[in-house]
């Protein structure tokens, strides 16, 4: 009997210990991610997802948020508004704490009513449409809207390069962004005295032929070609432009400033200008470390989308960590003031918008180089 009791005690202890361990496994904090990760604009979504994923993996490696691990639930909106709405609803049903994304403005305009209705906070890494600026809603973002980049580009080319005739090609597949950008550029360029001589558009797809569009564009003898589209389309357009005109200045909106642009554009993208928030020449340790870790993890450079994805995830997780019990997340995010981004302090105003320095970048020697 005594021996049996002696055996029972360790068994009981082991059972208690196992139950304790089971009890100690804490429920993860679920964060959703929505972005276009397939198709021609996938580089933006993939970069944003990779950046957010890296931030989450690093946070979990350091103990998660208040001891709880973070789980990133990733959904592909396929750059399709219906899919974007569907996956956003899915994430809301899964009771995620917050959604990071989407990566393009069109998708953002499609899902914002849904998240506002569900009071689900959404923090976008790269959406820059002005249509969502100054709204007290549940949509927040870590990049300023196009009213910052487009005028900057216009000013640079008019004042520094002395260009007066701009021809624009934009993608109607993400018109919320491209039209917003175009409007900002046109307004600034024309106010300065320049002229937008022609505006051509296309809808991104595998069978699109760019040479007729480019040929038509160049017919107006522009001294500046402005491309408002994704990196894939922008690089192919550049290839077509350069086939016909080797001297015309090309400027691309920040959407196209991913690493794929240079890879696909080859020599044709040399000398192309961008107005963007990313300072490629930054030597800050934080940025350099980020580059190192990102390359190690994904085998490629992050680009602006990877960095923005990382920053958006950082803002979300810092706010979740600092949030007091019972405080709505939106209030917690906005109350925190400044967040430490990779290259800058991210300060959100009461509408969840932010401001940033805009850099003029050009491709030189197969690399992005910040020139202003």
């Amino acid at each position, binding site marked *: *009997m005594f021996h049996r009791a002696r055996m029972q005690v360790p068994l009981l202890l082991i059972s208690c210990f196992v139950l304790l361990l089971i009890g100690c496994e804490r429920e993860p904090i679920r964060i959703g991610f929505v972005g276009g*990760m*397939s*198709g*021609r604009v*996938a*580089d933006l*979504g*993939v970069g944003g*997802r*990779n950046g957010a*994923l890296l931030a989450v*993996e690093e946070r979990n490696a350091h103990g998660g948020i208040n001891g709880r691990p973070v789980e990133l639930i*990733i959904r*592909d909106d396929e750059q399709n508004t219906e899919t974007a709405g569907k996956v956003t609803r899915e994430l809301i049903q899964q009771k995620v704490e917050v959604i990071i994304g989407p990566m393009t403005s069109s998708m953002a305009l499609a899902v914002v009513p849904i998240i506002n209705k569900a009071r689900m906070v959404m923090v976008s890494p790269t959406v820059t449409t002005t249509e969502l600026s100054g709204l007290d809603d549940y949509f927040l973002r870590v990049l300023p809207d196009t009213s910052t980049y487009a005028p900057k580009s216009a000013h640079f080319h008019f004042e520094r390069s002395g260009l007066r005739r701009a021809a624009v090609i934009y993608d109607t597949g993400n018109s919320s962004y491209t039209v917003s950008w175009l409007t900002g550029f046109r307004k600034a360029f024309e106010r300065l005295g320049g002229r937008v001589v022609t505006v051509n558009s296309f809808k991104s*797809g*595998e*069978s699109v*032929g*760019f*040479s007729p569009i480019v040929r038509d564009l160049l017919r107006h003898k522009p001294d500046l070609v402005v491309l408002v589209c994704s990196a*894939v389309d922008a*690089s*192919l357009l550049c*290839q*077509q432009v350069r*086939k016909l005109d080797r001297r015309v200045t090309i400027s691309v909106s920040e959407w196209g400033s991913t690493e*794929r642009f*240079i*890879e*696909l*554009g*080859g*020599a*044709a993208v040399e000398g192309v200008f961008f107005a963007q928030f990313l300072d490629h020449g930054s030597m800050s340790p934080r940025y350099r470390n980020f580059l190192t870790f990102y390359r*190690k*993890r*994904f*085998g*490629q450079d992050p680009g602006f989308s990877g960095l923005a994805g990382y920053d958006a995830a950082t803002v979300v997780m810092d706010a979740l960590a600092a949030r007091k019990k019972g405080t709505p997340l939106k209030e917690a995010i906005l109350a925190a003031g400044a967040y430490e981004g990779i290259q800058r302090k991210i300060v959100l105003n009461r509408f969840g918008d932010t401001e940033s320095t805009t850099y003029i970048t050009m491709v030189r020697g*197969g690399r992005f180089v910040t020139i202003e």
Partner: protein
Amino acid sequence: MKIRSLRRFLAIRSALIAVVPFLFSAMLGWFWLRPQVVADTEEHQRQLAEVIASQTEDYLVASSQTIERTAVVFSKKLVRSDGVPEFLDTMLASEENLTSITFTDAHGRITAIALPREKKPLRQEMTGIDLSLTDAVRQVRASGKPAWSDAYLSPVGGALAVAYATPAGEGVALGEISLAKLSSFLKSIEPREKQWVFILDRRGQVIADQEGRYTARQYNLTNLEIVKDGLASARPLTRGFSFNGKRVVGSLIRAPLLDWNILVASPIEIAYRSALTTTGIFATALCIALLLASGLALFMSHSLATRFEKLVSHARGIESGEEAGEWPSDPVREFKLLGEALQSMADTLREREKSQNTQVYFLQQLMDSIPIPVYYKDAGGRYLGCNGAFEILMGMTRKEIVGKTVHEVASKDRAGRHHEADLVLIRHPGEQTYEASGMYGDGAYHTVIFKKATFFDADDRVAGIVGALMDITERKRAEEKLRESEQKFRVLADTAPTAIVVFQGEYFVYVNPFAVRLFGYSKSELLGMKFWEWAHPECRGMAMERGMARQQGDSVPSQYELRFVKKNGEEGWMIVSAGRIEFEGRPGGIATFVDITEAKRAEEILKIALAEKIVLLKEVHHRVKNNLQIISSLLDLQADSIHDERSRSNLLESQNRVRTMALVHERLYMSKDFTTIDLGEYIRDLAQYLFQSYASNGSQISLRLDAKEMSMDIDRAIPCGLIINELVSNALKHAFPGQRHGEIVIRCNDDERGRITLVVADTGVGLPAGLDFRDIPSMGLQLVDLLVKQLRGSMNIDSRQNGTEFLIQFPAC
């Protein structure tokens, strides 16, 4: 110890017999079979990965060969330049996996391209596009060798693709394969249901998966350790890991021709399905065996238990004294033997019980004869027995006491205390003594000393407690009285105007305040002193010897004077009165000291004064005697000058009278106290003197003296002497006229009434007849008469012819 039934005991043991092999089998399976199964599964996974790698390479090698052949044709310009597009279209059509075939110049620009039918309109647009920075072209241009690219977004196809690139002349020949197609191929060779299969490029990005989902979304799987390690090393890897929230076992193997990695990952439950199935069958069989064994064991337990119960029932019958009859017979030899053995044991036990009962009776009698209450109880506090004295004390019979606890036989407060004491004694075996008091069962209030001790069983464990009660009620009362007495003594002693001390052994144990004042020492000093240390050095020995002897009960004077020395060195005298005393329960000595220093001093002064007085008195008497002797001598001289006989006789009489008085004073200053003289001696001296004085006829007259020694003071001695003087002188002068012989008798004695009788008689002629001495003019007899009166005495005269007798009686004082 918990008692369990035989059935349960046997059931548990039998179950253990079944369970232990079961557990052993399980452990064997876990530690031996499981690693084997794991190894087999991993091997299966690895082989599967190798097969898939091989199939993928087979699938792609045709495409690469097509590109190689095209490159050769193109570089050797075997086709005319205007026929190149057609040639390329033919080659593209011949290899369905390829989505495009492209040739570049030395700068990486497209010089010729073949596209699928639907994209043919773009051929012109694509021509001239710079592919120099695409992964495939860059590798070949860098190495000069053919290579499969990593996944990339094709500027040609506009979708994710991989490409086989090979040098072609100065340029590069490039054949793209859609990743979607590759994924379809993968799905065709390994459906998703069983496991995941991934083809990963050199960066860990998914080139193909069965669903195409990870491919389309450009997932990079370097977050998996197996992928990270696999990219760093060409060795095949197999291990378990988590994927999409599931535990999987996966193998990663590198496809050598492609330089890609193939990852095959199966959920644990699928990977180990066969092993789990086998284990399940094995476990089920074991469980059934376990159940059968347990059932059989239960049946056997029941059978055995029934037989034992019969034996137990019979044993109970014997135990209760019933005539149980024969032991139940059993066909099983062992049970039969057990029954016989039990019968034998029962007989032996009866005999032993009888013997023990006798012994128990004796012991009980012995206990009952003990005049003090005795009981004994078990370790649980239940009374096992007691003696008669205990019954009387408790007011209960033995039957009422035995089997009960102290809580059931004693009042609540007493029971609690005894129980606590019992617990302490059980915890610390040995002996225990304590005092308790209260109202006992006999209705009287008792103060009792409990003396308890533990007793032990054969295993030397505490079996119980035996206790004896000693009634000390009377002793307590005596002690109380003694305490009261001591208290009174202290009050009395503390306030007494006499020094009182108590000593035990060599030391004082009590000194009263007066003793402190007497000796000048503080109380604490005195209590630290030996009881003889205050005595004068000359007396210390005596004080110590008497004090010690007194304590030992020896007979020593109880009162004596002693010299002592105060703390300040002053010496004094005291009267010590000592005796024995019982003080605070111990024998000792008590002494009172009366300071007689002042009285002693007064006595000394008195003695000196007395001595001085004695000297003075002696001197006075001496001087009076001398003066009287001078007077006598003067009278004698005077008589010598007087010739008249009568006058001379008168002077002589006066001289004798003076001499008589001088003799008294002489006797007085020679006496001890100067107040009294021995009358007998005085009479003798006086008579001799008178005879010498009237010596003329002294030889004819004899003196017979019968005077008893007796003291007499001067006031009486002088009259008495004068009386004797007058009467003896008268007799000497007148009683024996002529030469008449005769005798003078003087007798003097006293009687018990204190009267002194003085007889002066002679055998002379007697007094003249009719003579009344009160009327005669003789001064001598008148004087006698006066002196008798002075002595408040009486005088009778018996005068006959043959003599005269004067009988004088007077009080002695």
